[in-house]
């Protein structure tokens, strides 16, 4: 298949692995930001092809994993109201809240529907004018333009029964929080190719300067990942820092300006709780006050939603790259995809799920 097979050729992958072996003279620790990258690193066995002196640390770029528990509990509360059609990307449905998840809420009678785009949710609100249609707007800068578009169109169409539960998060503040931590051991980043397709790379330049760290904007296919690692390791070995783009077939320095403009029209930056990590200032998007009529948190009474996180789960340390999933005492024992204690075990971008599903045979 074109545009996929070219990036999965074994001979080319082996060439890059050899080049990395020749390049590396000492141990390095590199974090890939995006959960999609984590999954492909493990699914294709790339982590095991690399020299053992290279440590790959999995980053916080799993939107499902970092969505705060409180918002999942609020989502379930909204979904349980009889006149509501609650819509969400499929990935979010299995994520455990304090006591339940959206799939269980559906099994108990809530009208929870999986959609593939926020615009599908908008179509539902046109089809069912006497129901309240709520879309769970999760994700990084990748999904934000689509969600901004849904809200913008809802106003154009004069829809009064559409709202979003907004849980957007932003990559650069999370990178800064990781780098500023006293426990930090990350020496280079593979930044998320799809986020930067939207946002461009300018906002990463001051981070690379401040922390003197190489940031390589990388794609998702095996050859992308290996090439991104090669570029990052080359910079590390040569003592250079700065932003480099591996994913040139999609990313430019300026990004998608039209998408950015729409996002800024609808959203503004706000402080955001990250599940397992805590509050990071100016790390999320909320609806601007001029768009508040589409904010589900204002439309529904959500008082008295109380949240309780599992005390065993170490998702926070995993999302910050401080620990790897097999180091968690609950991994594969109390915590499995059927009985997740934390979100990284259920999301298709979660690090724990990747290790559980694709990990070593024994």
């Amino acid at each position, binding site marked *: 298949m074109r545009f996929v097979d070219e990036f999965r050729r074994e001979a080319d992958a082996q060439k890059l692995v050899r080049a990395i072996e020749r390049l590396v003279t000492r141990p390095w620790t590199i974090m890939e930001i995006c959960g999609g990258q984590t999954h492909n690193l493990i699914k294709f066995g790339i982590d095991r092809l690399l020299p053992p002196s290279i440590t790959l640390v999995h980053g916080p770029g799993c939107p499902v994993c970092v969505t705060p528990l409180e918002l999942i509990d609020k989502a379930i509360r909204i979904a349980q109201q009889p006149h509501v059609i609650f819509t969400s990307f499929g990935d*979010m449905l299995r994520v455990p809240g304090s006591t339940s998840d959206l*799939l269980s809420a559906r099994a108990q009678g809530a009208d929870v529907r999986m959609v593939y785009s926020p615009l599908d949710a908008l179509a539902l609100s046109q089809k069912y004018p006497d129901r309240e249609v709520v879309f769970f707007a999760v994700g990084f800068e990748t999904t934000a333009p689509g969600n901004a578009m849904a809200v913008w169109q809802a106003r154009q169409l004069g829809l009064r029964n559409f709202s979003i539960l907004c849980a957007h998060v932003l990559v650069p503040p999370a990178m800064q929080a990781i780098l500023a931590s006293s426990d930090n051991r990350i020496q280079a980043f593979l930044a998320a190719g799809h986020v930067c397709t939207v946002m461009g790379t300018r906002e990463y330049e001051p981070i690379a300067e401040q922390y003197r760290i190489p940031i390589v904007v990388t794609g998702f296919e*095996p050859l992308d990942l290996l090439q991104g690692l090669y570029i990052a390791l080359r910079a590390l070995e040569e003592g250079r820092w700065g932003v480099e783009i591996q994913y040139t077939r999609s990313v430019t320095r300026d990004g998608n300006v039209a998408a950015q403009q729409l996002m800024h029209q609808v959203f503004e930056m706000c402080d955001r709780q990250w599940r397992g990590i805590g509050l990071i200032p100016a790390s999320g998007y909320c609806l601007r006050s001029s768009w508040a009529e589409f904010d589900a948190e204002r439309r529904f009474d959500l008082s008295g939603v109380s949240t309780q996180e599992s005390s065993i789960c170490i998702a926070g340390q995993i999302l910050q790259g401080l620990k790897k999933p097999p180091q968690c005492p609950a991994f594969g024992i109390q915590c499995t995809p059927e009985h997740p204690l934390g979100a990284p075990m259920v999301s298709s971008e979660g690090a724990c799920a990747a290790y559980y599903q694709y990990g070593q045979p024994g």
Partner: protein
Amino acid sequence: MIDLQCPIPISDYPVVTLAHGGGGRLSQMLIERMFVPTFSNTALEALHDGAILELNGTRLAFSTDSFTVSPLFFPGGDIGSLAVHGTVNDLAMCGARPLALSAGFILEEGFPMEDLWRILLSMQRAAAEVGVPVVTGDTKVVERGKGDGLFINTTGLGIVLPSAHIAPQRAAPGDVVLINGPIAEHGIAIMSQREGLAFETDLVSDSAPLVDLVMRLLEVGGEHVHVLRDPTRGGVASALNEIAAKARVGIRLDEERIPVADAVRGACEILGLDPLYVANEGKCIVIVAPEVADRVLEIIRAHPQGGQATLIGEVVQEHPGKVFMRSRIGGLRVVDMLSGEQLPRIC
């Protein structure tokens, strides 16, 4: 001894979720913790696609399946042809030639009579193609809103070929794993028609009867054919995991060799689905002893249902109970059983 005083074995799920019907680990839990211990008997405990019963020295295969597909009409078939193919294929996977089918219909009040007629004609054609009569049936009508248009149950009875000795436990190290063509076509064809996901594709379901194919390969392979399995719900990965667990062997796949049509791969890449977990309705996993592998593969390839048959892996001693795969770029990974439904990713 189980009675009503016994606690419910799956107490952590207070209600049934869709994942309990997904063909993955939760379906398996439901079967192994609730159904099998409750009805406990040797024919059931074999947990094959159908039960094998002995009657005066003749082995009978007995299998049942219910069909709830939505939409009822899809590219490459409809619920009627699917209900025939599903059950005759389950019999074929026991090494049996189908003798007769029953058909039960649960109809929803208001269901268009014309659609019912189309579905019946389609069932009739599918059954005639296999040469199996539908000999008994049942009809129930439920109130509007209490069914999804139409559900069909079919049950089949077949006679096991004397030369057939098919059981998941017979998979042995050294055996090879064959498949009769590209995977995941039924699941993706159905998904392409669902509300909210209509995407343009020429893809059709692979729904087809496998009886003739199985009879021919058994003629050549005889008792060297160790396992037959149609990877329906849960896909190839779930079927192979069940076999690996039953036989206490490892199964090693080679990603490069697994046939997947470009249209299916494209849809899976976009949606973030793994074709190994997507349903098939005209595919058969054949595990055979190495000495007959070439001849069996030749026979499958010569058959209309097996033109693109390939060898996709082998049974090994290492990692008993697990399926693992050499990735396209040479890495190794586990191919686990799916825990619930596959859900499309966010970005």
